[in-house]
């Protein structure tokens, strides 16, 4: 494991080059690269607002700007998670030539997919800041929680990305399963709604490691509160475990990549 990490460090420049390639290609293909990064979060926010508007109508309660801000704040990390898992899933099978012909640590591919998605996230974040300013969300010292929460999302995405990239190399239909899970995952994750809206049963939802992290974002950016620490601890533990297990799983299967792809 230690040796694997040292090897990965040795190839760090290649990791950045491949991430840079992914970003460049993505932005070159679409005429408006900026829109590419913003489109998915915008769609998520718009559908979230629609859903919340329906909730508000049914409950005869007004839709508050804080709710919209909360949806926007949670949509971005969610979009990042979905995009890095989706690109990660295709990262090995899409680079067939490089997997079979050249030696380097292959976890570079899923990690580069995460980095490229992180770039999209940063672009979209600038748009989010403008939105939050327009909504007069304000700020507090709790904002400093946000980078730590994002780091956990990144670790979680990397761990899952490694597992699905390796699995889809061996089983071609894994990508369909992943796609379905990602599409419907948003309903089991508090993006459009808050956990407390589900009352006591909301706890079950927090078992999803993304849930406490997204709730944390909403708490520290919109509600100006600290995240719920016990649940956050659980999510951090799970994210670290996802990374460790994902990496071990990936390295275990890596020697068989070239002959199985």
């Amino acid at each position: 494991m230690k040796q694997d990490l040292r090897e990965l460090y040795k190839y760090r420049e290649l990791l950045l080059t491949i991430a840079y390639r992914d970003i460049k290609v993505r932005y070159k293909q679409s005429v408006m690269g900026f829109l590419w990064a913003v489109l998915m979060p915008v769609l998520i926010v718009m559908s979230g607002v629609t859903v919340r508007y329906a909730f508000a109508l049914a409950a005869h309660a007004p839709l508050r700007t804080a709710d919209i801000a909360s949806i926007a704040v949670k949509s971005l990390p969610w979009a990042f998670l979905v995009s890095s898992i989706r690109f990660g899933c295709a990262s090995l099978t899409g680079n067939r030539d490089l997997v079979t012909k050249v030696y380097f640590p292959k976890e570079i591919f899923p990690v580069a997919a995460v980095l490229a998605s992180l770039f999209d996230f940063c672009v979209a974040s600038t748009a989010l800041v403008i939105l939050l300013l327009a909504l007069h969300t304000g700020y507090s010292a709790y904002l400093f929680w946000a980078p730590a929460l994002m780091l956990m999302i990144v670790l979680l995405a990397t761990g899952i990305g490694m597992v699905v990239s390796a699995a889809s190399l061996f089983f071609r239909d894994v990508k369909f399963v992943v796609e379905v899970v990602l599409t419907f995952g948003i309903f089991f994750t508090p993006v459009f709604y808050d956990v407390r809206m589900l009352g006591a049963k909301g706890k079950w939802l927090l078992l999803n490691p993304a849930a406490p992290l997204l709730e944390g974002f909403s708490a520290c950016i919109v509600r100006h509160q600290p995240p719920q620490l016990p649940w956050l601890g659980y999510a951090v533990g799970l994210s670290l475990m996802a990374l460790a297990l994902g990496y071990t799983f990936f390295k275990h299967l890596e020697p068989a990549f070239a002959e199985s792809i």
Partner: protein
Amino acid sequence: MSDVALRMEHVYKRFRKGETFNSLRDLIPALTGRMFRQQELSETDKREFWALQDISFEVKRGEAFGIIGPNGAGKSTMLKVLSRVMKPTRGSLHVNGRVSALIELGAGFHQDLTGRENTYLYGSILGMTKREIAVKFDEIVEFSGLTEFIDTPVKHYSSGMNARLGFAVGAHVNPDVLLVDEVLSVGDTLFQRRCMDHMRKIIQNGATVLFVSHNLKTVADFCSHALLLDHGHVVTVGSTPKVITHYMTHLRQDRAANQSRPVVISKVTVRDAAGPCHRFRSGHKAWIDVEVSAREPCSKLAVVLYFRDENHYVLFSTTTERLGYGTISLNSGDILRCTFEIELNLGHGVFYPAVNLYRHDIEQAEDVWEAAETIYVWAQEDVSGPVNFFPKVIRQEVCRGRLREADDCTAHGHRGQDRSTATTSGPLRLN
């Protein structure tokens, strides 16, 4: 120890043949089915295939080493094990230093990126740092000859341009051990020549180079030592001429005697004055013995001898009939023996003598033996091409500053009528 660049010890590589499950849709029913029928497991285990078996060899630092063998010998697997893309099933591989492979160039290119971007991408894939690439960038581009297209997306490149840029990047990596596939055959003749010169320079600069190729000529040109691989086994290791000779005898096309034919070519032997031989010096004599057995009576036969080069072009052909021996009729049980004496005015390379039996009565070949033998010809003169004209320079002179009155100059030559020889063959300076 430190003078060994690379050592393989008892390397085995196993592949599973037949169906493997590459989708969950197939795997899940198979797994549940397997729980009830235990024997299926052992059945799939049997379908394995050893691509490499007990391979051991070492390559010294600064040596050019060739790995040759026919198709399916395990060369590609060997290359993948050497480049560490595949892990051997058993055995070990030790490498001192950085290995880089020059295989199927352009594999790392992304079609939407420009030549410049791809140079950086491919360079770092091959293990160069950004700074190294930046330092060598101009050299790489100049070598590829794509200076004016370097900012064009690679998708607009021709396949030759792709390969040239690929080679140019790959050739500038400067690894401790360089693995070379069949990549020297890209681009036009001029580029190929440049590649060859570059490879020679790399070897002279002390890099360890491994050629994995079925192109004997490349291996013979560059490598001092070689390994012959067949069916996953090492057949022989040693000095290149020795290994090539072995290859010739070992892999001679063994032709199953076709019982249904009335007459067959039963034996073809190539020899020199001393006896059977596969390695000839250009310009020397060779004798080819052909034996024909007749099972049934057959009339108006002639033995045809022809030579093919590595690209399977027929370079030369003749027959006993055309050489003035007429046609021959054989009775059942007869054996015909004939010997051709030829002068091998061939260039440096590998050639395949072939023999067929032509029946003039029905005007078709009765029996054909393609690549009946393989011979390796080496030339003392530094010449290239399939033939050897045994050239000598008999005159070279420089007429300084006399371009305008070139007539005066050539008038002194032996061949006054051929004005161009004197003005183009020597290095002409215009100052």
